[in-house]
C-alpha cells in the first residue's frame, strides 16, 4: 500500500491523460478511440483526489455516486470493490464512464477544477467497470424470491434497462419490450463503436438478463400489442422508456434530395446495421466525399466522425452558434478536431441544391451572429442578411435534435403530453396520469443524457416496486 499523501502532494500530481489511439490510425476504422487506464494509471490518478469532507462532485453527479469512496478504493487497489460502490447507484458504469458529460457534472464542480484540472472521475469510473467485466467478476445479485407481480418495460434503452434490472432485483417478474431487433436503444443504434464498443453494451444487457429479466425484441408496443392488451395479459405496472426517436428536419428546400440523411438514419445504417461492412453486411450507406453534418451536439460529432471513417475527404460540422454553445462533450470535440474534422461555426443551411437525378450537390448557407440569449440561456443566432454562400456537398446529415417518440401516446388515449409531445409525469415518482404507468428518460425529457435516463429509471423502479406491493397509491 502506498504511503498516505498530504493534500499538497496530491495536488501536485498532474491529471493523467487517457491513452488513445493515434488519429491517423483510428480514422481507418471503427475501433474504440480511448484505450482506458492501466491499473497503474488509475491508482496514480486516484491519488489526486482530496477526499473532501463535503464532496461537491457527488452533488454534481445526477445519481450521486459516492465518488470519493470509490476513488479511495482504487487508490488502495480494491478495484472490484470500487465497481460495487458505483453500482449501488449506477447500473451502467462502463457506459457512463464513456459517454457522460463529466465536464458539466461531477468534474465541473470537483474542487481541483478551480485551481487546475479536476480528478478524472469519468476515466476512473470506466476503468473499474472495465476491470470488473474483464476479470469476469461481475457478481449477479438476484432477488432469490419472486413476488409474483409482473411489470412491463417498454424500450430497452438506458432508462428501460435500469428499471428492468432494479425491479428484477426486487423479485418482480419483468419483461422488456423492444421495437428493434437489438437491445440498447440509442446506445446500440446511435452511439458508434469507436466511442462505445458493442461488447461493452452487450455485457451490460447480459447482466440485466442474468438478473432474470426477459427481453422481447421485435415488439412495438402500440402496434404488436397495446398497453391495454399487455394489461390483459397480467402486467400490473408499466414503464415507458421509448426515448426520443423522432428525428427533426429543418423543413428547408431540397431536404428530401438523395444523399440527405437524418442523423438517426445515418447512424442506424452504420451502427445497428453495420453498413460500414457493406457488402459483407447487406445494408448500404452513401459514402460522401464532402459531407456536411448540421448541428453541434454529440449526435453531430458521432455522425461527422463516422463520415470521416467512411472515407470523406472533407467531413464538416456546420453549426449555427459558436464553439462555446456546442452541447457536445468536450472530449468528442477534441477527438473530432484531432481527426481533421472541419468546423463551420455561425453558419446554417438555407436550402439544398440538387442535380437532375435528385442528388444533393450543394448547400446554400447563411452566416449568423449571436444576439441576446434565448429561452435555453444560450445566445440566439441571428442570420446576417446577404451573407449567403454555397458549399459543395454530396452527403448531408441533419443532426438538429429529436422529439419524443409519438408511438405510445398515439396508440393509447389519455396521456398528458407536454408542448413537444413529451409524456408528462410527476417528477418525484415518474408516475404518469394513466393508471399503473410510469415513464422516464428521453420520452419525458426530449433528447437528454444517458445518466439522466438512468436516474429516472432508478427512481421509477423504486415507486413501481411500491406500487406493485400496494404501498404507493397515486
Amino acid at each position: 500500500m502506498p504511503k498516505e499523501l498530504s493534500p499538497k502532494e496530491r495536488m501536485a500530481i498532474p491529471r493523467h491523460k487517457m491513452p488513445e489511439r493515434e488519429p491517423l490510425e483510428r480514422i481507418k476504422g471503427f475501433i474504440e478511440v480511448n484505450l482506458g487506464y492501466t491499473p497503474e494509471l488509475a491508482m496514480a490518478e486516484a491519488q489526486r483526489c482530496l477526499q473532501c469532507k463535503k464532496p461537491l462532485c457527488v452533488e454534481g453527479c445526477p445519481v450521486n455516486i459516492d465518488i470519493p469512496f470509490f476513488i479511495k478504493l482504487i487508490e488502495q487497489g480494491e478495484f472490484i470493490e470500487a465497481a460495487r460502490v458505483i453500482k449501488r447507484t449506477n447500473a451502467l458504469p462502463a457506459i457512463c464512464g464513456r459517454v457522460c458529460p463529466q465536464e458539466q457534472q461531477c468534474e465541473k464542480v470537483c474542487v481541483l477544477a478551480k485551481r487546475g484540472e479536476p480528478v478524472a472521475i469519468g476515466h476512473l469510473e470506466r476503468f473499474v467497470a472495465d476491470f470488473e467485466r474483464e476479470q469476469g467478476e461481475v457478481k449477479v445479485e438476484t432477488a432469490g424470491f419472486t413476488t409474483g407481480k409482473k411489470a412491463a418495460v417498454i424500450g430497452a434503452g438506458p432508462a428501460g434497462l435500469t428499471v428492468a434490472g432494479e425491479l428484477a432485483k426486487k423479485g418482480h417478474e419483468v419483461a422488456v419490450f423492444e421495437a428493434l431487433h437489438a437491445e440498447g436503444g440509442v446506445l446500440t443504434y446511435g452511439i458508434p463503436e469507436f466511442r462505445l464498443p458493442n461488447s461493452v453494451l452487450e455485457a451490460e444487457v447480459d447482466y440485466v438478463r442474468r438478473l432474470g429479466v426477459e427481453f422481447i425484441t421485435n415488439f412495438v408496443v402500440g402496434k404488436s400489442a397495446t398497453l391495454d392488451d399487455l394489461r390483459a395479459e397480467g402486467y400490473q405496472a408499466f414503464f415507458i422508456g421509448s426515448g426520443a426517436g423522432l428525428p427533426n428536419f429543418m423543413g428547408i428546400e431540397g431536404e428530401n434530395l438523395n444523399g440527405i440523411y437524418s442523423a438517426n438514419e445515418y447512424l442506424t445504417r452504420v451502427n445497428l446495421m453495420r453498413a460500414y461492412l457493406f457488402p459483407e453486411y447487406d445494408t448500404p450507406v452513401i459514402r460522401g466525399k464532402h459531407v456536411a453534418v448540421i448541428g453541434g451536439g454529440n449526435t453531430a460529432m458521432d455522425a461527422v466522425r463516422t463520415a470521416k471513417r467512411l472515407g470523406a475527404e472533407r467531413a464538416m460540422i456546420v453549426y449555427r452558434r459558436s464553439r462555446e454553445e456546442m452541447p457536445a462533450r468536450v472530449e468528442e470535440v477534441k477527438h473530432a478536431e484531432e481527426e481533421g474534422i472541419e468546423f463551420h461555426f455561425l453558419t446554417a443551411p438555407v436550402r439544398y441544391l440538387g442535380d437532375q437525378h435528385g442528388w444533393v450537390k450543394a448547400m446554400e448557407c447563411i452566416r449568423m451572429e449571436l444576439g441576446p440569449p434565448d429561452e435555453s440561456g444560450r445566445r440566439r443566432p441571428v442570420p446576417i442578411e446577404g451573407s449567403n454562400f454555397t458549399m459543395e456537398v454530396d452527403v448531408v446529415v441533419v443532426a438538429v435534435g429529436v422529439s419524443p417518440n409519438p408511438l405510445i401516446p398515439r396508440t393509447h388515449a389519455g396521456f398528458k403530453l407536454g408542448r413537444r409531445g413529451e409524456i408528462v409525469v410527476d417528477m418525484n415518482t415518474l408516475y404518469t396520469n394513466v393508471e399503473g404507468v410510469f415513464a422516464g428518460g428521453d420520452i419525458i425529457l426530449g433528447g437528454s443524457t444517458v445518466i439522466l435516463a438512468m436516474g429516472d429509471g432508478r427512481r421509477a423502479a423504486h415507486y413501481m416496486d411500491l406500487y406493485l406491493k400496494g404501498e404507493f397509491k397515486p
Partner: protein
Amino acid sequence: MFEIKEKKELGKDLCQFRVHAPYIARRRRPGQFIMLRIYEKGERFPLTVSDADPESGDIWFIAMGIGKSTKLLNSLKEGDKIRDIVGPLGKPTPVKKHGTVACVGGGVGIALIYPLVKAYREAGNRLISILGARTKELLILEEEIRSNCDELIVTTDDGSYGRKGFVTDALRDLMEREKVDFVIAVGPVPMMKAVADLTRDRGIETMVSLNPIMVDGTGMCGACRVQVGGKTLFGCVDGPEFNAHEVDFDILMKRLSAYKPMEEESLRLFLAQGEGNTRVAGGE
C-alpha cells in the same frame, strides 16, 4: 426466430410464405406491413402482410425476388428460419363502402392489392379489378382475385393474354363505361403516377400504396420520407397509403433509386455464391 411453416410458389420468383406470429396475426389489418431481417447480416425490409389468421396465429406474405433480400427469402425452404419479423406496422387501410371500387394492380403490386380486393369487397363495394403484367407468364394471383371480385380485367403489354395495352387504358375505358367512386392503385411508380393523372381530371378519389426505402419501419429514421401535398411525411408511420393526387411521384422515384449501384453489387455477389448461401438464413 420465425420458422417458415409453408411456402408456395405463385409464379416465377414469386413466393408466398406462412409463418407463426401470433401477435401480428391478432392485430394486423389490411394495408399493414412487417419488417423482416432474414439473417444476422441482412438488411431490414418491408413486406405487406397478405393475410392473417388470428385463430391459428399465422400470417402470410408474398415476395417477388428482385433484389438480394427478396431472392434470399425466396430461396428459403419450409422449416428454415427468418431471424427477425416485426409488425404489424403502418396505418391500416381505412376500408369503407364507396360504391364502385376499381383496384388496379401492376406487376408485384398485384400481390399487394389482393388483400385490399378482399377487404373492399367484404365492405360491400362493387369491385372491379384491373391487373396488368408485361406478359402472360408474369401475371399472378389471377384466380384468387377473380373469385373475390365482381369483374376482372387483365391487360398485358405484349397482348399475350387478356387485353393488349396498359392498365390505364383499361381504367380509362371502365370510367367511360360506368361511374367509379374510388380507385386503388398499387404497382410500379410510373403506373401509379399514370393512374393518378387519369383520375385527377375526373375528380375520382384515388389511393396509392407507396413503397419507399425503409430502415426501421417505426418512424425513427426518416429514410422513408415522401412528399405528399407539399409536406414531408414518413411512409412507414403516416402511410404506406396516401392520396394519389397529392403524392410527388418524381421524388419518390428518385429516392427509390438512391442505392441502385449497391443493390446491384449485393445481388451480383449473392448470385455468384450460388445455392450454398441459403444456409445463412436464421443462422449466424
